[in-house]
């Protein structure tokens, strides 16, 4: 299953609409979490929000995640070892207060398991490919261990 998720805070109809347009051409069924969006998908299953109780199951069942460039979803995809395709929200299109998601993807592009789609065609092409998953031994693991140890030492010295 392909999981599309836009988060709970802001609508992201552009992304939902794009996937809905070519959903029937994809080899796997799509489940879209549309949040506060007003566009109703016609060619794929959709839900407003994922209940916390269903959350793990939905992520485990997904083979690939399509998402706005929210850090929460990036971390969750990594936790479940799933490839993630990021579509950054753009302030000029009224999709966020500012363009920080564009800045985020500029730093994350090229990391294992993370793919950035700047156009609908990018997105469709990625979904037709077999995408590699994030590895548990990539450089971000060292960064995390470093932060955790630093905090641990600081707390211990209090």
């Amino acid at each position: 299953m392909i999981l599309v998720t836009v988060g709970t805070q802001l609508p992201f109809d552009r992304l939902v609409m794009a996937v809905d347009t070519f959903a029937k051409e994809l080899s796997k069924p799509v489940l879209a979490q549309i949040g506060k969006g007003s566009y109703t998908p016609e060619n794929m299953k959709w839900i407003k929000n994922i209940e916390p109780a269903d959350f793990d199951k939905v992520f485990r069942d997904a083979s690939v995640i399509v998402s706005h460039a929210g850090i929460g979803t990036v971390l969750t995809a990594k936790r479940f070892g799933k490839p993630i395709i990021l579509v950054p929200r753009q302030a000029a299109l009224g999709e966020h207060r500012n363009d920080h998601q564009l800045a985020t993807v500029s730093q994350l592009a090229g990391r294992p398991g993370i793919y950035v789609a700047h156009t609908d065609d990018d997105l469709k092409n990625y979904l037709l490919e077999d995408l590699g998953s994030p590895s548990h031994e990539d450089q971000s693991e060292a960064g995390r261990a470093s932060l955790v140890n630093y905090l641990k030492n600081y707390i211990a010295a209090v």
Partner: protein
Amino acid sequence: MTDGKRRKILAASSGGGHWEQMMAMRAAFEGSEVVFATTIPGLLKKYDISDGLILPDCSRDSILMSIKCFFSAFYIVFKLKPDVVLSTGAAPGLFCLLAGRLMGKRTIWIDSVANVEKLSLSGKLAGHIATLWLTQWQHLSRPDGPNYAGAVL
């Protein structure tokens, strides 16, 4: 833990990405007594946390909610009397840090990894409040802080 004493930590963050980042650094709290606080009740359940606390959310759009959040943060910190207050953002966490600092506690701010080009407003303000002020991007670190010590991503 050099002296075998268990530190009490209040780890407070907003929902969404801020919360996921705090969960990603959870291992740092091993050996301590940690109380988590966030703005969305379902998130505690998602991580099987039964004794967490709920903070009212606050946004720039609602002054009333912000005032409620401010007092709630102070109440939680005053009641809990933690040794350390830690937050990954945003405003509700900053209020907890402020309360902690006024009570003379250690306060840790880890700016969100989403802030790639500059610190958030909360993150900048935290520079005046936190006893440990961190960014998760090397290129945003400065000699006078924020410092870089690693990142969850």
